[in-house]
């Protein structure tokens, strides 16, 4: 596997500014995940606490009002599961 060369000091932007907006999206933190959140819609009251606490801001609401995580970015931290009022989110082991 070839490692791409890191930039030298002459290659840097002025003051290390990042010129591409939202470039953090290129970092797919979903690759860090060992557990995934799974919602039980029978217990979910659609309160949105999971969305508010998600540190990746990767949880969104679907057309029916239920919540889901974007698996490109969900890093499996489990905060949504911990904070859920009705304990409707369980963390399930990812298959290896």
């Amino acid at each position: 596997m070839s490692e791409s060369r890191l930039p030298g000091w002459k290659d840097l932007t002025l003051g290390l500014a990042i010129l591409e907006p939202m470039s953090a999206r290129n970092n797919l933190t979903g690759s860090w995940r060992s557990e995934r959140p799974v919602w039980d819609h029978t217990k979910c009251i659609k309160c949105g606490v999971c969305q508010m606490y998600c540190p990746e801001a990767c949880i969104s609401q679907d057309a029916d009002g239920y919540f889901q995580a974007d698996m490109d970015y969900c890093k499996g931290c489990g905060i949504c599961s911990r904070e859920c009022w009705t304990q409707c989110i369980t963390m399930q082991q990812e298959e290896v």
Partner: protein
Amino acid sequence: MAKAAPQSLRKGIEVSISMAEAAMQANVDVVAAYPITPQTHIVEHLSELVADGRLDAEFVPVESEHSAMSACCGSSASGARTYTATSSQGLALMHEILYIASALRLPIVMAVANRALSGPISIWNDHGDIMAERDTGWIQVFVENGQEAYDMTFHAFRVAEDHGVLLPYMINFDGFILSHVIEPIVYWSQELVDQYIGLYEPMLRLDTKNPITMGPVGIPDIYLETRKAHDFVLRESKATIVKAWDEMEKLVGRRYRPIETYKTDGARILLLTMGGVSETAMTAVDALREAGLPVGLVRIRLWRPFPFEELYEAVKDCEVLGVVDRCLSTGGPGGPVASEIKGALYHKDKRPKVVEFIAGIGGRDVRVEDFQDMAKKTLSVADGAPLPPFELVGVRE
């Protein structure tokens, strides 16, 4: 060549007030400052100029100096020409943001009325405040009189905003012995100022229509390269600094160099000073030369980037160099300027001995006689006396 200034432009004015009016002539967009002690009349006068409608700028009276420099960073990042002034404890409170201003490559101009740091509580002149900020990555210049303080305000904007530089610039002028003195200052016409500094065109700016990120995390993989780039551009800025002084000479006839000399021809010993006491030292050198003593003076004007070559050129032929520091490096090598000078000379085969004096601490007056004593002590070392330890000039037993 020097054009004789019209008499109407030569004013008897307080140095601080002239600097505020230079900032007005430079047409600054934002002044963010903490407007009480420790301060000078600079920001007080700027607030009047803004309130009276003579300067179309935003005056932001913040709640601390930490906030003042933070607001300056935000303002400069948005592309506004930004100015502030501070002193002693205020500069110390800005400390952590000073590094950020330079790392973000923001061309902020700041006047620093150099004064002692507490404690004991002091509002008087020395270089204790600025020596704590040596390594903040700013361009740092010391001036010796009111005319230079006024002129250097234009030089600061000209250099800081140059796209090959883009670094913040500190104009160091001694508190009280310069800041509160009334003396003759020849103003530039507005046309000349406009011609010299033009409009500020930012290379990068915060803009909601074209968003960028300034100040991201520098992980270990990139922090080192960022610091190298900063160090490189600060060192390289010397060429732009000197070029801008050359152009100023063409416009107003006053010549500024990174290292200045005075009566060094045939001098066996030189005193070395920085800032407002340099002119008092010249008076002492005049008297000693009249008495037939081979004494001269070297003054550091450009402190960062440090002018290594120019310094060596100025001191290499003397036998002993008497460095006059305005700050005590407590428990350290004595004076910070002397220790840098010694570092700069260490690897040279031919180099003068260095005698160290620390004078004018916390507002203690440095008289012509004091400089004469220092010169004579330095001369005695050239005549074979043993090298003395650093001396706190005037300290009582």
